[in-house]
């Protein structure tokens, strides 16, 4: 019965209260913009850098750049986010003093650069591998041969024909990856003491505030599902070959 009341409240925006007495929805409203900023920054880093590195590696398959990109991405995937977080925090904030170890409560963009790099690192590695694989596959496709035979410049073949077709799996990945980005945000915001959604969940877990954790993660899962629906709908726009039955 308690559960039904909770679920009923959930859909009306009532998420309960934290142990300190604030409504969960208020805490979330305050925390959400910070996390959105961090996540968008991380998404920007990982997709721009990942697609670029993956494209170059795919075009020069088997060369030195490709081999090192593969090794680096494998290493980045194996090292958990919280370890990368601590190492970068130690090297860049404690030793070199280039960044702050903890982010202030307003969390301006400049202070979020280091946490965003940490958050982006694992997904960056996956995007590099994905882009590389699909670029090298598309390079051998018939439409690329046709485009080259038509006398198009290499630059145009690569950007218009190869890259555009290679981006479909990457966009799919970005949707699924939002889930690991959320887990990463909990860890990263915990390490850098950012007052975002992830940081709040981190503190709630540490303090054993079950209800707060459940409410926040429920909202995160809803966002995740909606984002994936959006990605599915984006497919058709990106790749005319995919059509949903009418």
């Amino acid at each position: 019965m308690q559960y039904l009341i909770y679920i009923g409240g959930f859909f009306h925006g009532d998420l309960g209260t934290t142990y300190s007495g604030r409504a969960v929805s208020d805490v979330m409203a305050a925390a959400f913009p910070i996390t959105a900023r961090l996540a968008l920054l991380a998404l920007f880093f990982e997709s721009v850098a990942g697609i670029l590195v993956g494209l170059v590696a795919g075009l020069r398959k088997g060369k030195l750049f490709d081999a090192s990109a593969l090794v680096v991405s494998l290493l980045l995937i194996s090292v958990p986010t919280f370890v990368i977080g601590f190492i970068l925090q130690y090297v860049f904030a404690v030793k070199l003093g280039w960044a702050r170890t903890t982010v202030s409560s307003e969390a301006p963009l400049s202070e979020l650069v280091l946490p965003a790099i940490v958050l982006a690192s694992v997904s960056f590695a996956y995007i590099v591998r994905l882009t590389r694989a699909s670029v090298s596959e598309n390079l051998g496709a018939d439409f690329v041969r046709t485009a080259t035979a038509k006398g198009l410049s290499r630059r145009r073949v690569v950007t218009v024909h190869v890259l555009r077709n290679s981006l479909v799996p990457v966009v799919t990945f970005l949707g699924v990856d939002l889930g690991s980005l959320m887990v990463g945000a909990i860890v990263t915001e915990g390490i850098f003491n950012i007052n975002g959604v992830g940081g709040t969940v981190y503190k709630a877990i540490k303090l054993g505030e079950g209800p707060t954790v459940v409410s926040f993660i429920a909202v995160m899962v809803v966002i995740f599902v909606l984002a994936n629906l959006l990605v599915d709908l984006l497919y058709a726009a990106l790749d005319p070959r995919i059509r949903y039955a009418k």
Partner: protein
Amino acid sequence: MPSNRNTQPHFVAALDDTPVAAVDRLDETEKARSTWADAWESLRGKPSFWISSVLILLIVIVALFPGIFTQVPPDQNCLLANSNKGPEEGHLLGFTRQGCDVYSRMIHGTQASVTVGLLATVIVTLFGVVVGALAGYYGGVFDAIVSRIGDIFFAVPTVLGAIVLMSVLPDRTPVTIALVLSIFAWPQIARIMRGSVLSARNSDYVTASIALGVSKFRILVRHVVPNAIAPVIVIATVSLGTFIVAEATLSFLGIGLPPQIMSWGNDINSAQTSIRTNPQVLIYPAIALSMTVLAFLMLGDAVRDALDPESRARR
């Protein structure tokens, strides 16, 4: 399929069309080679396969017999006088904040981390293969129900779901962590198995078995599953690594293994407080963790290349 056959004039080429010479030229002494033999042939030549196998073997030995690698007890005789001290004779990697030996804790922490990863992988693989194979092979209502239930759990990112369950569960052991991770991870394997079985179900050898009068269940067990399981093996290898990371992440958040069980995640968690003064306490368990995950990822990659002839041809 069979209805299609009836409309065809001949099952096989007419006798006078059959190139007898070609049949005669077949060398019957040469054994037919299976996918697995081919895969093994290709794996044998790969350095990444050998490096990862040796690493995994080493990790398994460390997990089973930590006593071979260190005589220093990991959680007794910890002297606070040694707190955060650097390396010295007999204590190669220095001491933790509590004055325990870092190297010994790293060695003894292997067991819990690997157990959780292995257990979760076994549960997920067994359950996913059985459910996926039955759903794909028999289809119908069972398939519909199982696939929709799978969709529900598939929609929740594994670690997020595990955080919720672990933060409310009263007792946390390696078994409960493995079970909780499995709850959210099985649909991935089930989906892959289902798809793989669906495409194997319509192949010629299944039609041949039906024609020979083999029972449906026997065809599934003897012919369909062995031919459909390759993609599952690849995913299972890789997910062993990701389960170990998931356990470490949960332990790092303080809702994984209880503190009295030694694991890399717990050690990294307790090393947080002394990272500025004594980073090696955090670095060494982190290296052990990353190397283990790396080994399983590399093995998964190598096996994928070996089992997937398409990706081999592309190289």
